[in-house]
């Protein structure tokens, strides 16, 4: 604890780090090179069941231009300083703003927050990485551009660049965010600046309208990776529909989920329902309106009887299916008929619209997210158990009813073994289905923290053995997930890393790549 720094990069002496910090300060100015503990503290807090000290940064750098980033990378190459880049750093439940490894320098791009272009006619945007969804939302509203965003649950405080680069999702028809990405500017480890797709062609005006350019498509290798620093990001926006109808279908038995997915899949693939459909379990819904302590005392996971009581008390479904229709009134009327007929056949589900549910808070936040409005209510999940622990478990399967119950049963079984609850939802993308489970635990209870770690590790092990790959994970388990995809993919990732970043300065450990 004698060091003037709260952490140092692995293998770097304090003397060497002093020299690097002096060089960073020459580029950015003293006020943009943070080393004081109270300035670094907001970067450290994670929700993972490992000591925060394992993810403590050594410094944070506030760059505002591409030229500054080029100079920072030159310094990092000179001293072999690892740098962990964040745009807005709101990766809640996946590691937040903390680096993957102790001592890494965080490059915080929040001050690179210019909205460079929003084209109303072609419905696209080009932004810098620090732009938040709230900022862009306000920009569009103020100018009455008639465009909608697609936002993830942290909406207002997160941003499109970071979310898309981590392959996050939203809830509108443009919810598969990387699918709607179009053109990046990337600073490579050697300082070169690459514009992907059509952006490399001088005088082109098609950078944000045609994704592929010529030759191998490169954008994908800059997502969930550490091969470059994205400094400009293009993506498509959804023209605001003239009509919008969100709805919920409530089912009262866990077994009903097979029927839900079987009905939903064709509606998704043929485009009747254009947005990703969320099928939320009661315990995923409940935190908006209830607390766990109202139903459970003592150790162990919540019982099925208690869940039933909760459902009854708050008029929830065991499964709550959220989707929406978009378009003209005529289109919606036609598609509404198809949807109600499909889901009405068995008589098991109760279909409800905004009018039916009134000011139901769960419906209100889902309806807001499905039209790309800013809303943070989903984070009520963190109040369910309390104590500040959360990890998202996110395996992917085919969108088939037969893939649901066995996953849910397996997850519940593993969670219960470790005394934790099943707070889960299925999201029917199109042909794929994400199973999203928030593993909530109390970080003030050391035994529960240990159990949460073991539980998450077991979930990854068991699910990957059954062929369910994880699409995204927190920084404490990146190596583990990377290993589940086999040695050949890891070697290819490593080969690319070696070629593009021979000194390994860019975010070592991201997605298990070093």
């Amino acid at each position, binding site marked *: 604890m004698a060091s003037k720094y709260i952490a140092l990069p692995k293998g770097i002496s304090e003397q060497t780090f002093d020299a690097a910090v002096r060089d960073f300060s020459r580029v950015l100015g003293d006020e943009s090179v943070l080393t004081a*503990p*109270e300035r670094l503290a907001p970067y450290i807090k994670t929700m993972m069941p490992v000591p925060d000290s394992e993810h403590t940064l050594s410094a944070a750098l506030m760059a505002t231009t591409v030229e500054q980033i080029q100079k920072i990378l030159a310094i990092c190459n000179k001293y072999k300083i690892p740098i962990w880049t964040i745009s807005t750093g709101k990766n809640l439940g996946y590691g937040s703003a903390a680096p993957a490894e102790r001592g890494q320098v965080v490059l915080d791009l929040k001050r690179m927050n210019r909205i460079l272009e929003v084209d109303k006619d072609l419905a696209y945007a080009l932004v810098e990485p620090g732009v938040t969804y709230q900022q862009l939302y306000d920009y569009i509203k103020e100018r009455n551009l008639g465009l909608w965003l697609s936002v993830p649950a942290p909406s207002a405080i997160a941003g499109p660049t970071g979310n898309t680069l981590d392959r996050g999702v939203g809830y509108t028809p443009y919810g598969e965010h990387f699918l709607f990405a179009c053109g990046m500017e990337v600073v490579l480890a050697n300082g070169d600046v690459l514009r992907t797709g059509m952006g490399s062609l001088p005088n082109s005006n098609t950078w944000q309208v045609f994704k592929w350019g010529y030759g191998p498509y490169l954008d994908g290798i800059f997502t969930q990776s550490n091969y470059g620093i994205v400094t400009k990001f293009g993506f498509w926006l959804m023209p605001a529909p003239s009509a919008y109808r969100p709805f919920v279908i409530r089912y009262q038995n866990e077994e009903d989920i097979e029927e839900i997915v079987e009905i939903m899949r064709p509606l998704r693939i043929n485009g009747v329902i254009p947005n990703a459909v969320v099928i939320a379990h009661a315990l995923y819904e409940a935190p908006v309106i209830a607390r766990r302590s109202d139903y459970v005392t003592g150790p162990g996971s919540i019982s099925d009887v208690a869940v039933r009581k909760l459902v009854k008390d708050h008029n929830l479904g065991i499964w709550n299916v959220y989707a929406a229709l978009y378009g003209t009134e005529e289109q919606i009327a036609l598609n509404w008929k198809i949807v109600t007929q499909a889901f009405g056949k068995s008589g098991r589900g109760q279909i409800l619209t905004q009018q039916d549910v009134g000011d139901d808070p769960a419906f209100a936040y889902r309806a807001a997210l499905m039209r790309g409005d800013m809303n943070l209510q989903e984070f009520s999940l963190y109040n369910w158990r309390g104590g500040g622990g959360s990890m998202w478990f996110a395996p992917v399967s085919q969108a088939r009813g037969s893939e649901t119950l066995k996953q849910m049963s397996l997850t519940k079984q593993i969670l219960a073994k470790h005394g934790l609850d099943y707070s889960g939802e299925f999201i029917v993308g199109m042909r794929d289905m994400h199973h999203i489970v928030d593993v909530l635990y109390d970080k003030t209870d050391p035994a529960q923290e240990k159990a949460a770690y073991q539980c998450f590790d077991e979930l990854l092990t068991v699910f990957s053995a059954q062929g369910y790959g994880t699409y995204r994970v927190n920084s404490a388990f990146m190596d583990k997930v990377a290993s589940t995809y086999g040695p050949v993919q890891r070697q290819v990732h490593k080969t690319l890393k070696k070629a593009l970043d021979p000194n390994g300065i860019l975010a070592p450990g991201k997605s298990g790549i070093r």
Partner: protein
Amino acid sequence: MDVNRRNLMKGILAGGTLTMCGIPRLTTAGMGPDSDTVKIRTCALLLGNTPVDDAFANGVSAAYSVSSAGIGNASAQPTPLEVVKLKSGLLVKVRQVSELLATSRGMRWVAVMDDASAAVFTEIVRTAGGRLLSRGTHVSSRNVSAYSAFQSDSPPLLRHLWASVSPEQSPGAILAPRLVGNHKSFSIVEDFLGEARSNGETSSGSHLFAPVFRSYESTGPLATHLHCSGVSVSEGCGLLGWNRSQRWTEFSSPRDGDEGTQTVQENWHPANWVEALGYAVTLAGLGVGTLQEYCARRGFVYRARQGEWRNMYESIFSEERFTSFIVEV
């Protein structure tokens, strides 16, 4: 906007005889070149619309009065404590809170909110370029089976987990003796990012804050202090989830007759643990009464005496889970 601002200056203006009361030092206490660029003008309280808001505010008010009285200028009126209450919570009012921080430069905030809001608030503080001096997670459960099992390895029903910049900004040592007075078992863990600035004192030999505790230090890779009452050092480690095989050296033990009594002399007595917490967080936020132990991690484990168990069972804690902050912008 239903962000409600008001001034609050009530409580015990007569102050007390805090054993380590001093002049509030409302300047930043960091170590780096970027740590002293803001001079703190005043202190404010942010209430996040939790069930504990009122109790926490009572403690804050009492602490603010004590510290104001300790400034030493009898003719000066203490600056009223500004209070902002988020009537519908931070998740709904995130933009207003961002604007609040952006327009309150030079302010030190004490805040309390639910855990969900806390996750977002931390992000807002970072985005605002704020300084996070301390963040505490607080849990009281009414898990009766855990209560009865506390004789073995289950954690106490009342637990506090702090991440603080240094012991100078950490409330644990202020809180611990006030919780002892409630005769309820508890644990406190504090992790420090930086060490306290040396004032020439050694870490050992000073136990004015909590004489009922036996104090131990471990000088492994992580300098750690552990203060135990009613449990052995090994039990204490087990209850905190620390390595039991760590080597410990005792550096302070209770004085005769001290064990089981509250010995900090002051006129204000908290009605419950949340008030005591608000008091401790605020004093730490004001830089008053904290104990500068030179360690990277500190723990307190207190187990109520056997005769007090029944009392504890009868007045079992209500279930409360929330987060406290000390931040500067």
